[in-house]
């Protein structure tokens, strides 16, 4: 299982990659592993929306379960990955790459300070596996 070092992680298994003031957001390798085969992704925010940390912004459905996805940070939506609707399996095959879900312009990058780094998140996942 992968835990890229350049990301920050939430307790609900979202990741965020900060580049400049732009955060790219998706769900983690652990999350896709727990969900198993993803069959449906619906992003419920649109470009231009102002969103807050903790808001639900997407729903992911697998053959096992459905899960809401929450925003790790507040800001304005810059881009939505429209391709996921037709290729939800990308969440399984490339959770940190092609399966990014939204990009937002962060209104308060310091919100990320409270999130987990890769080492803390890996430990958090291991604890939950037992």
């Amino acid at each position, binding site marked *: 299982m992968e835990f890229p070092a350049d990301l920050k992680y939430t307790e609900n298994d979202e990741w965020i990659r900060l580049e400049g003031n732009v955060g790219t957001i998706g769900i983690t390798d652990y999350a896709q592993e727990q969900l*198993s*085969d993803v*069959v*449906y992704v619906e992003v419920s925010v649109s470009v231009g929306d102002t969103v807050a940390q903790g808001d639900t912004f997407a729903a992911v*459905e697998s*053959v*096992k*379960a459905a899960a809401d996805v929450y925003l790790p940070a507040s800001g304005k939506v810059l881009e939505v990955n429209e391709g996921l609707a037709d290729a*939800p*399996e990308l969440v399984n095959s490339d959770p940190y790459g092609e399966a990014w879900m939204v990009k937002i312009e962060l209104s308060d990058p310091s919100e990320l300070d409270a999130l987990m780094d890769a080492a803390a998140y890996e430990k958090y996942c291991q604890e939950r*596996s037992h």
Partner: protein
Amino acid sequence: MAEPLIYELSRAGCPPFPLPDPDVPLSELPQGLTREDLPLPELPESEVVRHFVRLSQLNYAVDIGFYPLGSCTMKYNPKINEDAARLPGFAFTHPLQDPETVQGNLLLMYELQEWLKEIGGFAGVSLQPAAGAHGELTGILIIRAYHLHRGDKQRTKILIPDSAHGTNPATTSMAGFTMVKLPSDERGNVDLESLRAECDDTVAGLMLTNPNTLGLFEEHLQEVIDLVHGCGGLVYGDGANLNALLGVVRPGDLGFDVLHYNLHKTFSTPHGGGGPGSGPVGVCERLVDFLPGPIAAKVEEGDDEMPPLFGLIMPAKSIGRVKAFQGHFGVIVRAYTYIRMQGAAGLRAVADHAVLNANYLRVRLHDTYHVPYDRICMHEFVAEGRWDDAPQVRALDIAKRLMDYGFHPPTNYFPLIVHEALMIEPTETETKETLDAFARAMLKIAEEARRDPELLKSAPHETPFGRVDEVRAAKQLILRYQPESQG
């Protein structure tokens, strides 16, 4: 082995299956609602019958073998229930008949209401709801009506433990409330600290499944109920698992304000493709006036000469109808028959054996399959379908492999709080021999998982159809026959 669709078997020009003449006057349908052609399959009767018999033989059913589908209570349904439901006096009556001509039906409904009150410890029962989730929605609408009637409008939250049935959050949303999820503690109970933190004057109620979906009796039940009552909320009981409690404890006595009964689980009427459900709702004294109606009642007392007269009444502040006519009457007759055949002692024995069977299987399996909340369970238990030394194997593979041994798989991947969950509910109607055979198959599969994991990954091998592509089935929904010409 695939059986073609009946449309694919159709041959144009075959002598059509004769339809009976209409027995009601014909009337003109409004324009726009009629169609010129109706492409029904054309086949002789014999081929229609053979098609459906072949299909039925591909199916698995509780009348074929063991069906330990957790949370679903797939107990054997005694055939006398079917005999009773087919009695002409029940089968050939119409819900719009004058009540005086259907006194037997109304008496049966009235008595079933009375028995469910007695079994659940409640002051009133409505037989209206069509199934369990419908009973849930009805229960929450009753809670809503109760608060609104008192002018208490700020109660917008419903608390739901994470070990509840998946329908509970859906019910909450449909009734217009906000759901608040409560975590479980390490023994599988509601976490009391989290509950305490949520209890305030915005709580409309708590939905509690007891025993919960881990098959565990809530150990702090009294504290949970007292906390919710203490902040002015009501407690809704999901009665789906009542099988485990019959004749032992009554939810009403424990402090539940509303409960739905699943006649199709606890009281042995066909379900899971075999028939409609029925989810009557029982309520405590202060909610009786809000019950959905109509409900059966004694409208005139009898005397030495005349029997009492039964009729249908609407409770004073009723939330209204939740179902056309009088609920699923055919199911009501079956449940009535079941209770009548069991009697009080029989119902108590149902609970005793449901709990005994589940614990017997739990203990036979718990050294091989990790049971995360491993304490005396009620009617079911949840094991993990994964091992560190068989990393490729998942719960789904174990479930599929069980089919090769002739068993219906347990519920898998629910509840979500257990990794790779296998939720096993044997029910009381199984013999020790059946339980032993199932346990042997489970133990054998655990060996196979280490020795030949591919055998599990590619299972089932012995069924009419092999492993189906669940991803494709979920992504490419084909819900009706699509002739090739339409693509």
